[in-house]
């Protein structure tokens, strides 16, 4: 299915958030996730299903002021 990952449309086979992160190469990465503008804690990723058109944000630590 096609979902939007950090603003870019991408095809994924995964049907859960945790599987999508592995498929997209973020398996062990230090990231936080939000799906359709709602925070999804790491502990909830396995139970979080995906639907076509979902908007996934994957954020990591960055410089800030």
């Amino acid at each position, binding site marked *: 299915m096609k979902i939007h990952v950090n603003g870019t449309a991408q095809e994924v086979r995964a049907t859960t958030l945790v599987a999508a992160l592995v498929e997209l190469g973020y398996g062990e990465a*230090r990231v936080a996730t939000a799906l359709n503008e709602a925070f999804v804690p790491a502990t909830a990723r396995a139970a979080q299903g995906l639907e076509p058109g979902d908007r996934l944000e994957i954020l990591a630590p960055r410089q800030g002021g």
Partner: protein
Amino acid sequence: MPIFYGTEVTSRLMLGTAQYPSPKALAEAFRRSGAGIATVSLRREAGGEGGAGEAFWQMIRDLGIPVLPNTAGCHSVREAVTTAHMARELFGTDWIKLEVIGHADTLQPDPFGLLEAARILSGDGFKVFPYTTEDGVLGGRLLEAGCEVLMPWGAPIGTGLGLNNIYGLRSLRAQFPDVPMVIDAGLGLPSQAAMAMELGFDAVLLNTAVAKAGDPAAMAEGFARALEAGRLAYEADPMEPRDMAAPSTPVLGLAVLE
């Protein structure tokens, strides 16, 4: 030293981590200044495992000081609240520098959104450091919402203009004498940080003034020394200024020579 939500910090300087010419320059600025808190943010990760986020996080951990994640760039309550939750998980801290921006050009806080977000996040267990204005009514409402720290701006972010509204800042300080207060944003020179201390503020938070200096480490140290000087002056109970001159050398015993 200031105590924020029960944690005493080691310095009155809170330093941002953005815009440095290199990671080495960043680390050196922190080392020479002895900054007590590092502010950080979170952004989209494109690199997957081993991406830029991991390398940055390792460098920040090596600084060995508490981190204060921000919600920089958020213009709505929903964005800020979601970002705060993501930051708490990512950085493992319930501290959040809450920014809800109301105007794109001035980066002025949106007081209404800020208050609403502060109320939500305090209820969610966050220890909120609100980036606010010098408005005393808003300050009072933020405290009622659960904030135990106020961070009024000196001037708009990144301008280096210093303390734009001395009266307003002095008034805010006087209204809430026991609340830890941090001048957040707008400082450009150490003298401005010293003035913030002389007004009785507890700390300053800055980034651009150090990161964009020709020698960031030297500027960071300059700020640290200015903060010490300003705080000493504040604690020394400064003289009252007056309009008319008053000779410091005794007049009594002055020779009559004409």
